């Protein structure tokens, strides 16, 4: 492999031809404008591609070579999906239609006939590179925009749900944690349980919708929300209305009722305080009557509440929390979910810890600023608090 020195940015072309004279002619025509890599056989070309396929922008490929011929190289490139990114110009003195059809069928982009003409060779390469560069730029733009949109909608959702949480005196981390735990549980269940059949899209929608579970608390007075002591029976009844109110808020998003995200959000808001034994609220649904996604968010909610510090309680370790949930001290849950929680404990802890190192502080700060500028009281003591869960608390 011989490579010419690059002074400015030059695209890299791999020339595959077993004949030295042909290599020499092509090199002479192209060396000023491109970096050139040479291979004298199809196998050598494949080996070079294994190592350098990310740097190679175009391939000039001879058809007839002693060991591995050009069509075989094309076939392997197609198999390894390199052909999608790297244009191949076949060099040929063949003009049979069958041959040309084969080249195109295998994803070859162009061909150059012998005898080589300097101008034609240079133009054909230049045009092909330009076309592919344009295609790459477009692909990058689309990917960038899709990513941007997803990032923005995630961010808006986070800010919005943080507003609810901050007012509630809870750290914005709670929403984030529920989302992570929900996603892990959903993924595990759909992979391991044949009754649960959630698509990747469902899972990401459920995880996103989980952020809205307490949106109904926006209608509960701050006096009740942030009362330091125990709630009176009357106050508790008011507090309990938040799940039905949340669902009501979501159902007012009339134009979006058919959106899966909104449907999941409705169920989650309304039924995340239902209990497996039917003693929950607001509807007293029992067992399988409660939609699974609402059950999942419910258990994630309880687990995170237990493992986080609150005004009225210290943080329990993950192990203690799971024990308490399993003993029925904090509600009644689907045994399938309890099992899953046991199995997934380490994975959940790891994911939460990793997320704690993320840049969510920025979003918290942004939310805080919005609320302050609107004179909405913020109860963000917990923002300063560290995530209670630490790796040392893992179950043995």
């Amino acid at each position, binding site marked *: 492999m011989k490579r010419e020195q690059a002074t400015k940015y030059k695209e890299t072309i791999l020339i595959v031809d*077993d*004949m*030295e*004279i042909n290599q020499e*002619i092509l090199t002479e025509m192209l060396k000023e404008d491109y970096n050139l890599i040479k291979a004298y056989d199809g196998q050598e070309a494949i080996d070079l591609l294994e190592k350098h396929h990310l740097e190679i922008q175009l391939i000039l490929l001879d058809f007839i070579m002693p060991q591995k011929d050009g069509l075989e190289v094309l076939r392997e490139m197609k198999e390894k999906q390199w052909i999608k990114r790297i244009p191949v110009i076949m060099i040929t*003195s063949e003009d049979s239609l069958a041959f040309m059809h084969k080249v195109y069928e295998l994803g070859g982009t162009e061909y150059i006939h*012998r005898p*080589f*003409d*300097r101008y034609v060779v240079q133009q054909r390469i230049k045009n092909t590179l330009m076309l592919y560069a344009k295609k790459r730029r477009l692909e990058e733009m689309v990917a960038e925009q899709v990513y941007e949109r997803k990032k923005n909608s995630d961010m808006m959702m986070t800010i919005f749900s943080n507003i609810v949480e901050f007012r509630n005196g809870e750290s914005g981390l709670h929403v984030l944690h529920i989302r992570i735990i929900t996603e892990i549980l959903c993924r595990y269940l759909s992979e391991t349980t044949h009754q649960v059949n959630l698509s990747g899209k469902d899972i990401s929608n459920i995880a996103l919708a989980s952020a809205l579970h307490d949106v109904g608390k926006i209608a509960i007075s701050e006096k009740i929300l942030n009362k330091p002591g125990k709630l009176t029976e009357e106050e508790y009844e008011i507090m309990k209305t938040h799940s039905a109110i949340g669902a009501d808020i979501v159902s007012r998003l009339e134009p979006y009722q058919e959106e899966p995200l909104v449907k999941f959000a409705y169920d989650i808001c309304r039924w995340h305080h239902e209990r497996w034994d039917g003693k929950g609220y607001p509807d007293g649904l029992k067992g399988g009557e409660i939609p699974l996604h609402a059950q999942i968010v419910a258990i994630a909610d309880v687990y995170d509440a237990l493992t986080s510090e609150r005004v009225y309680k210290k943080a329990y370790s993950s192990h203690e929390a799971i024990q308490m949930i399993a003993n029925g001290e904090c509600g009644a849950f689907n045994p399938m979910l309890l099992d899953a929680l046991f199995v997934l404990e380490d994975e959940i802890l790891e994911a939460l810890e990793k997320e704690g190192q993320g840049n969510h502080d920025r979003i918290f700060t942004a939310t805080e600023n919005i609320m302050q500028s609107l004179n909405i009281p913020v109860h963000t003591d917990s923002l300063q608090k560290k995530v209670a869960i630490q790796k040392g608390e893992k179950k043995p």
Partner: protein
Amino acid sequence: MNLAECYGEMGADYQGTMQRLCSEKLIERIVLKFLEDPSFGQLQEGLEMHNHQQAFQAAHTLKGISQNLGFTKLGEASAELTDSLRKALDSTAYVQFEQVKTEYTTAIRTIEKYRAGK
């Protein structure tokens, strides 16, 4: 003898080659390289040993190189041979090979003369 005269003597197309490759230096370099090119030897060996595959590949390569060099007569002779070898290795091929051999020998002799006279 200059390069153009060398081409003239073997009945090759200097002007056309110059138009395509645009560099006398390059043409000279590859013409001299042609002296060491193995494809004629491989073709001869392939035919002698009745190795159809080798004969076809070598003829095909020789055709490509001759066309690139603008060696019109050798290009035509090897193109005909390549076409018949594509179908079969039979007596036609051996007859056609004689023509290729004649053209090849002329080309090599002329290039050697050119090299000696430089």
